């Protein structure tokens, strides 16, 4: 995928580029808002990642200009501002997602995936996890032999999210945001507990779990062969 990264901090740029390239993306970097805008309008990118505080033009203005020029590429903000008001400002300016510094690289990757997938409009009613089929409409796990387990709304949302990002480590912060709509650290183990419940429902005793813990980072869904 071709990505545009606009960030004025050289060290952070280096890290993000390294991470994105490792994940197989092609990245064009800019350290000024106006330059990023010009590039975003002229060249075709699959996704744009914008810092908010930049010389030349701030990230909000860049998006407003892009949208005014009918550039519909997905935009993720990368910012040091963490007010809800700033977040709303970013989203109303035309951004699609908002990530606060400091962030986990994996989280940035997951959010990029979300936007790309949304652009591609996938999503089927039924997904396969090992011998289970997940019916997202009825919130139910089913086996071909008719055996079934009901899922609670949040369990289902969590499982869906993990399935959407196979092989990608999802941070607790990302899961809390997407499943619980919580963007602060609540100091509870609600994510771990929910993953635990999902594993109890999904896993076959004696086999490796399909939802694996990555210590210090989060959880990853590994499709079993």
């Amino acid at each position, binding site marked *: 995928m071709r990505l545009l990264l606009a960030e004025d901090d050289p060290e952070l740029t280096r890290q993000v580029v390294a991470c994105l390239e490792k994940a197989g993306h092609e990245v064009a970097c800019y350290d000024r808002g106006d330059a990023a805008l010009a590039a975003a309008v002229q060249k075709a990118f699959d996704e744009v990642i914008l810092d908010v505080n930049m010389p030349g033009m701030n990230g909000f203005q860049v998006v407003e200009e892009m949208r005014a020029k009918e550039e519909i590429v997905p935009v993720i903000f990368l910012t*040091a501002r963490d007010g*809800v008001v700033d977040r*709303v400002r970013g989203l109303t300016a035309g951004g699609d997602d908002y990530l606060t*510094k400091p962030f986990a690289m994996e989280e940035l990757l997951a959010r990029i995936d979300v936007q790309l997938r949304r652009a591609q409009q996938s999503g089927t009613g039924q997904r396969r996890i090992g011998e289970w089929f997940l019916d997202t409409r009825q919130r139910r796990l089913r086996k071909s032999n008719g055996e079934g387990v009901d899922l609670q709304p949040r369990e289902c949302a969590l499982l869906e999210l993990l399935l959407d990002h196979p092989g990608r480590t999802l941070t607790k912060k990302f899961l809390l945001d997407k499943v619980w709509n919580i963007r*602060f*650290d609540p100091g509870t*183990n*609600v994510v771990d507990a929910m993953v635990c419940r999902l594993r109890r429902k999904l896993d076959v005793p004696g086999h490796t779990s399909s939802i694996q813990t990555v210590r*210090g980072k989060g959880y990853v869904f590994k499709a079993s062969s």
Partner: protein
Amino acid sequence: MFSKLLPERLPSTWRLALLQCITIATSIALCLTLAGMALRSDLETISRRILLDDLGEYSSVYEMAGLDGIARMFVSGRHENTEGVRVTSADGTIVLRESLSDPEKGFPWPALTSLRKLPEMKGVKAIEHPGKQPHVLIGRVFLPDGKLLWYGRTNESDRGYIQHINLYLWYAGVAAALIALVPIFWYAGEVLQPVRSMIASALALARGSGRERLAASSAVPELREFAAAFNTVLDRNEELTSELQAANDQLAHELRTPLARIRGNLEAFHDSVSEPAARDAAARGLDEIDRASSLVQTILTVRAGEHQALALHREPLSIRELLTDIVDLYTISAEDSGVVMKLDVTEDRTMMIDQQRLTQAIANLLDNALTYTPQAGSITVRCELDETQCIIHVEDTGPGVKPGEEENIWMRFVRGSAASAKSPGMGLGLSLVRAVATAHGGATGVNHRPGGGADFWISLPSEA
């Protein structure tokens, strides 16, 4: 002083009018008293002159017609007051007595000896009668043959006259005071109207976003000056607030960007090493960085809240859904520590609130409650709704708050004495709760739960 004399609860218009009324009534009373005194002394002077005239007349009648003449003239005369005439010989024997109509009862003539002592032609003496208000004026002249002619008269009719006049003057006075009330009432109302609209404006200010200003367009010049001075203070406050917000943004940026760099490097390190101990250390480092950045955020939020600079993103939300979600978030933690979590919300209301901030505030209360509630205890989240506000309670069965600590636990970096070294936290949780509640126009507090434990509450005004 007057404000103490007059009932405090009375509106100023009434108080002013009442005060003015009292002033007018007092001055009228003073005028009437003085007028009465002047009138009385005038009438007395006139009475004395008449008495002297009468004495002259009687003495010339005596020269022409003797004692009989005096008696005849007295009897035929028309007397408005009770009067009397008397002639004494040089040795004091009474030769003629035409008495005051009821002399002995009402106004006895004074003893002759004292009468004799009346100074020559100074003329007239007033004799007070004990027990009766009117008095007798008595005058005397020497008749040509050496006898003394006495003439006396009471001042009854004068007094009646004065009383009559006084009565009408008092009527006029009271009527004047009452009539004076009307323009005073009107004027005071006129003057106070701008004050009232200023009060309304100030109240709107208290509820507003901080951009509103005190309006006093039609007020008296002094009030306009006051409003201008007050608005200068507000301008300065707003300036400081926006400076603070800018400084907070700056500080956030300055702290978060380096944290982001460190995090990125540490993450790269974590991913590249395979040795478990190194991976573990890196994982812990990542955790600490996340904690540090959330701490920075909390401090900034609390600081902004303390200076009324906390920007809210309000949206219409159901209180019941909000509380259900929060309780849901903590139910598993509670089960793990053997604590029962209850939600008690009977009614629902949609309110304009900042979902993230309020969730965080209530989550802090729940987190606290979980930290301090022992195994087999319970935590209840309750919501009270009335017309004016919504009060969210978080009640626990923990040790409760020590008496005397109810207020200072809300301060930054203050931890209650129940906090131990084991329990996490920097004493910012409750400060954040208060900052968020205040930004919503509400308040926070803690009660002692009957039967032990703490009852922390957040109140939010209904229009919020």
